[in-house]
């Protein structure tokens, strides 16, 4: 694409969006970052989250609070921060090997090195980063009959970029005659959005003899503000080198972007530029609405079954909106033909134009979970044990979400007083692939502290790990 952004502003955008955007609770997609408690459970949260931690996951679980109780979170004493970044192809060892040099000089790659590096991308070359926080969350349960109310302001910034394997192959081995290079696997989506949410949940207690003890239902309504979006909507570009080294193919790419005026972004095709006024409360570039629906069933023997459909809705982006596109056939068979060279340049740089608006969805997910709580008297271990099993199915590939189903298992063990909660779990699928999560939780009476990583491989085998994850935060409970 053309250098349509002011580079300085774009750098600021990415840096600040990464620093200030966060989210605290399980929400936004099937694989996105969640609060530290759920992170420690390998994001097994559908039947195990409760109170304000259930906002965005299953509003029905808001009811899992004591009567006349209040929960809230702020940046005091410990801000709720969750960060997860990495790749699905490059470990720290591999990063050191290929980009660490040899005695301070460049490593000269052998054919074997090239092959191995190329193979790293054979199953995808995805790079992602999700960083989130909650500015404020509050939940109150006056009584069972009145139900549970909550308010929340939750920010999320994230992005994913999939490097097309063809790019790596071309860079390492050059263009091989007869081989078709598809760039269709290139993906890029990044945004920063904020939800102003209001939720309500009500539990219905049933007869004690029934196998179904309790039913909870909840709903959340969200006003969504988007501060920037940049994404590739479609890539269907390919190249092939013919028998006489003629390079032919097809360019087909469409992308969109939108930025808040506060970023001061200037497009090349536009003479208008707003002054950069970056801050937490900039005017949004897009607005939308969404809602979550949730049900939770408490069965006999402390078995909980939950299901939810979250983030149903869309965002309409209207500020500083642009469309980027490149279409047409590519043919280079004569390097002395300036017309061909100009055409090739046009196909790769593409064109850009201002558009009135475009819309994106929200990271809609269907969630299903089972939870089982073992009390001290039923437990073969000392203390209490909470077990959870989740299935999350995203309906799009927006940041934090994945159409690849994710299944996870997690447990939370509280051996006894003064001993922290020990949490762990494994997750398969989604955008994280395999992840082993570990976390700790401390309850000090009115404040709960949680710390976790969803990628424990980083700790036990840091140099072979491909991702890094850390989440921590606190919750006030009264």
């Amino acid at each position, binding site marked *: 694409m053309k250098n349509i952004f002011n580079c300085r502003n774009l750098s600021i955008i990415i840096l600040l969006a990464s620093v200030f955007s966060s989210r605290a609770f399980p929400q936004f997609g099937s694989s996105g970052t969640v609060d530290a408690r759920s992170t420690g459970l390998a994001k097994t949260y559908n039947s195990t989250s409760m109170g304000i931690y259930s906002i965005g996951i299953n509003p029905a679980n808001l009811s899992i609070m004591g009567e006349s109780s209040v929960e809230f979170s702020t940046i005091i004493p410990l801000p709720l921060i969750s960060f997860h970044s990495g790749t699905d192809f490059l470990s720290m060892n591999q990063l050191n090997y290929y980009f660490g040099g040899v005695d301070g000089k460049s490593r000269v790659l052998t054919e074997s090195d090239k092959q191995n590096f190329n193979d790293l991308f054979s199953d995808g070359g995805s790079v992602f980063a999700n960083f989130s926080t909650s500015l404020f969350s509050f939940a109150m349960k006056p009584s069972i009959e009145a139900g549970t109310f909550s308010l929340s302001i939750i920010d999320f910034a994230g992005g994913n970029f999939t490097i097309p394997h063809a790019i790596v192959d071309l860079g390492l081995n050059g263009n091989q005659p007869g081989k078709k290079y598809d760039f269709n696997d290139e993906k890029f989506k990044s945004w920063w959005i904020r939800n102003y949410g209001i939720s309500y949940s009500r539990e219905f207690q049933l007869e004690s003899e029934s196998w179904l003890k309790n039913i909870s239902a909840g709903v959340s309504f969200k006003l969504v503000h988007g501060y920037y979006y940049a994404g590739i909507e479609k890539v269907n570009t390919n190249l092939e080198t013919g028998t006489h080294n003629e390079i032919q193919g097809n360019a087909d790419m469409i992308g969109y972007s939108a930025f808040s005026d506060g970023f001061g972004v200037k497009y090349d095709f536009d003479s208008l530029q707003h002054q950069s006024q970056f801050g937490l409360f900039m005017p949004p570039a897009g607005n939308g609405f969404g809602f979550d629906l949730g049900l939770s069933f408490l069965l006999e023997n402390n078995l909980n079954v939950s299901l939810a459909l979250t983030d149903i809705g869309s965002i309409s982006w209207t500020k500083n909106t642009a469309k980027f596109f490149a279409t047409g056939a590519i043919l280079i068979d004569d390097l002395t033909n300036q017309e061909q060279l100009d055409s090739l340049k046009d196909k790769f740089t593409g064109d850009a134009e201002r558009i009135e608006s475009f819309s994106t969805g929200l990271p809609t997910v269907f969630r299903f979970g089972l939870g089982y709580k073992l009390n001290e008297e039923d437990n073969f271990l000392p203390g209490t044990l909470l077990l959870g099993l989740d299935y999350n199915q995203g309906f799009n590939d927006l940041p934090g979400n994945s159409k690849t189903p994710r299944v996870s298992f997690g447990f939370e063990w509280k051996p006894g007083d003064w001993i922290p909660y020990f949490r762990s779990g494994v997750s398969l699928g989604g955008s994280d692939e395999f992840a082993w999560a570990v976390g700790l939780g*401390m309850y000090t009476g009115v404040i709960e502290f949680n710390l976790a990583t969803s990628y424990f491989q980083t700790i036990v085998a840091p140099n072979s790990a491909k991702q890094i994850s850390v989440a921590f935060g606190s919750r006030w409970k009264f």
Partner: protein
Amino acid sequence: MKKLISALSILSLFSAFIIGCFDLPGDIIMPEWDVDLNVPIINKTYTIYDMFKPESKNSITSTLTSDDFYLVQSDNYTANTKVADYVSILSQGSTSQNFIIPANQPAQSVFIVFPEDIEIEQATFASGFLSFAIQNPSSAVISSFLQIPGIRKPDGSPLIIETNVPAFSRDSIVYDLSNHQYTFPPNQPIQNKNSLQLVASANSTINGSFENVNSYLFNFSFSSLTGSIQKTSLGNERTSVSLNLDDAADFRNKFFIKEALLSLKSEYVSTHHNFFELEIANIQINGIRNSGEQKALTRNDGQNITFSLVNGGYDLTLNETNSNLTDFISFLPDSIVISSEYILNPSNDDVVRTVTNQDSIKFSVQFTAKSIFAIKQTNFTDTLGIDLSQDDRDKIHDGIGADLNIYLENAIPIDAFVKVTLTDENYFPLFTLTKNQNGVDSLQFLGSQVNNSTGQIISPTITLNTIALDSAKIMQLSNARYAIISTTVNTKNATNENPNPPTVQFKSSDWLNIKCYGKVKYHLSPEEK
């Protein structure tokens, strides 16, 4: 509070532990590697029309259509010869007549024959003189009265010459006839049509006296003349035409042409239609090289080449069947000399015709050698400068190896052999680009397949030459300053050993497609990325 401090301590330790586990590289240093780039370089199709279109090769051809191609089509060389020159020739002769004019007698007619016995009905003199030498042998003065009834002065008055010659004296009279009109007098006997009539009389005081008169006609030329002229040789004319062969001279003794045509045209140009017949006889056409070598264009039947301009024109076309024209053109002379004799009224009839000094004979020559020919192996050598910036030379220097493929699909029946030698600034050879590693064989580009009997193209021929350059040669290439290109061409099967090489046909739509592509092995280092 104790719980809070404990919790925060645990969290801090846990965070530090995670961060401390990583072995991050101190600096990101991009690796280096070798990469093979398969690049297209050239894909161009040329037709003969493109290569020899008129604006670029004026000396080669002036007309092209989609299917015709003329290797040589000369300009239409013309030479105009004024007939007046020939009419002037008539005046080279002179006539005289002696007669006696008796005094006091009736006037008598005297007839002075025109030079060359021409019979004039009407004429305008461009020049000419009438001269009289008169002798009076008597003892008394004699007055002479000479009237020329056929001639009128420019003002239209009759020409009358009067003179008095004293006793025993002589007189001489020269009269200039310029711009005078002549009309055959109606009362002049027809048998005296070839003569100028003079009516003379004299008076004297002595009866029986007389004068002796010597009359002369000379230096006659006419701006127009109607009459009859006997068969007359107007002399020889010689015209030389330079062909400006330039580089085409390299093809001498290598070039064999077919279907050449020599078109010779002559035309009597006049404002009137009653002109004389003219014969351009014994036309000699000789090709002359600067070295002095000559070849004559001759007819196969041994006859001279003669033009008879009956009814005003005569055309003659010579080709390979009626002459040695193909040999003549293949001789590729630097100039062609044409000489001939001009004969007026070759049939020597008495028909009255008109000639003026505005009449001319237009004589034109045009060579057209249609593109059916053979070229024996012919070599050209040229030296080209390699103008590369130092930055470009540095980039070439980073190359490790390269394979350059030259794919030629040739629908033109010419084989070409190319040898490129790269040299340094002192013309010291660095290496020769060849199709193999021994540095001897040239690159070969074979011409299209042709029908040996007709010379027509059957199918294009594909030739693929691959030039392999190792790192040492690439290093030399980065230092190359000149390319000495030696090219040898011949038409299909026209080897030096073949004394009668087959000819091939060319059309302007004949084409060749050249694709140049290659694989470059390049070492990518951090500064290139």
